[in-house]
């Protein structure tokens, strides 16, 4: 690792002040992505602004419209045990990485990073969540802008994520056994207004909504409604773990399984 300083503010306001003090400053949350990146010298911040000492962005609550609101610095383990009102979300969190990763890694860090194979982006997009930052609210549909790319501006910190709770939902992850990330993961959620299907791990553009499957499931929420639907392998990630065609095939399989699991 290159040398850097660490600051540990206790309020969002102080964190933002420290963050914007230099273009080379960067937030640090659970460090489960950033520390391995720093070890490979793929980042060289001047100062890391730790978010782990800021109590106002930790914890889970429910707002007046019944949404589950999760502070950005809430760990995967805390979501797994504390988001019981949204069981599919709690289940997703409980299968991220391994227990030690879940004790440090946070939802804010995962969404800020937007790894094309990460789990939370599928939940946020599949739920039509709102990503709240220190300066604005961003709809999930506007937030994810391609692999490792988001609507976040430099100096902007995610503070909270608000999830509308669906009638039914499930996340199905086909695990890449070495990394434990999703080789393909599909989040399906049925709301009064329609069904959302969000796919991670597959596309070179990062997490995306499978609109044909959404339309089919909105009129008939059953695995059989998906019969005959498939995605092209073009534009899918193709690597040593699986070809684009294989991933495209897995998307359809995991979507059917998610619908069945959602019941």
């Amino acid at each position: 690792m290159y040398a850097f300083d660490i600051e540990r503010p206790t309020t969002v306001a102080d964190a933002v002040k420290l963050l914007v003090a230099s273009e080379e400053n960067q937030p640090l949350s659970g460090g489960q992505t950033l520390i391995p990146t720093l070890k490979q010298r793929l980042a060289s911040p001047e100062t890391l602004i730790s978010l782990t000492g800021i109590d106002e962005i930790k914890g889970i609550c429910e707002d007046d419209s019944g949404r589950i609101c999760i502070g950005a610095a809430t760990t995967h383990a805390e979501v797994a045990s504390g988001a019981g009102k949204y069981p599919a979300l709690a289940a997703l969190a409980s299968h991220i990485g391994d227990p030690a990763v879940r004790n440090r890694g946070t939802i804010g860090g995962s969404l800020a990073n937007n790894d094309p194979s990460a789990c939370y982006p599928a939940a946020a997009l599949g739920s039509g969540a709102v990503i709240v930052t220190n300066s604005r609210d961003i709809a999930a549909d506007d937030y994810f802008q391609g692999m490792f790319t988001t609507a976040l501006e430099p100096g902007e910190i995610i503070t909270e994520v608000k999830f509308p709770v669906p009638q039914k939902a499930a996340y199905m992850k086909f695990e890449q056994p070495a990394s434990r990330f999703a080789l393909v993961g599909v989040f399906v959620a049925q709301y009064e207004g329609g069904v959302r299907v969000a796919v991670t791990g597959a596309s070179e553009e990062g997490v995306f909504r499978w609109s044909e499957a959404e339309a089919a499931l909105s009129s008939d929420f059953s695995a059989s409604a998906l019969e005959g639907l498939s995605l092209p392998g073009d534009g899918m990630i193709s690597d040593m773990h699986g070809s684009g065609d294989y991933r495209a095939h897995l998307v359809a399989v995991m979507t059917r399984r998610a619908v069945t699991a959602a019941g």
Partner: protein
Amino acid sequence: MPQVSMTVNGKPATGQIEGRTLLVDFIRETLNLTGTHVGCDTSQCGACVVHVNGKAVKSCTMFAAEAEGADVLTIEGVAAPDGTLDTVQQAFHEHHGLQCGFCTPGMVMSAKALLAENPTPTEAEIRDYLEGNICRCTGYHNIVKAIMAASGQDVSKIAAE
């Protein structure tokens, strides 16, 4: 250089650190507690697992600065002061839960975290919990068996001696 203070194995520990000093480096190099191992550079092997405020974490993937004020338990703090092994350590010993021993500190710390959360885990739950602890020697079987035994469960049904 900034200073960090924490409690390690029940004793106060203070030292000078850099921003980039990992908790594992503070434990091994400043405190000379070399039981906690480093087996990888990618946060995947779990040889470095310690408890921070009662939770299992990879000490190679946490900065020492982040442990300011924390209560840290390493493998050195697990046995009784007179050297008597704790239940999990004793079970690893009895059931041959180690060969080269490199992964063992992390395995024991993860096993203790599991049993604190779930005192009588099933075999599947143990295997699932150890997902982030890699062992290149044992094939895991005797590790799983040792943890079953440490939780007071019958291990005779687990095949392969």
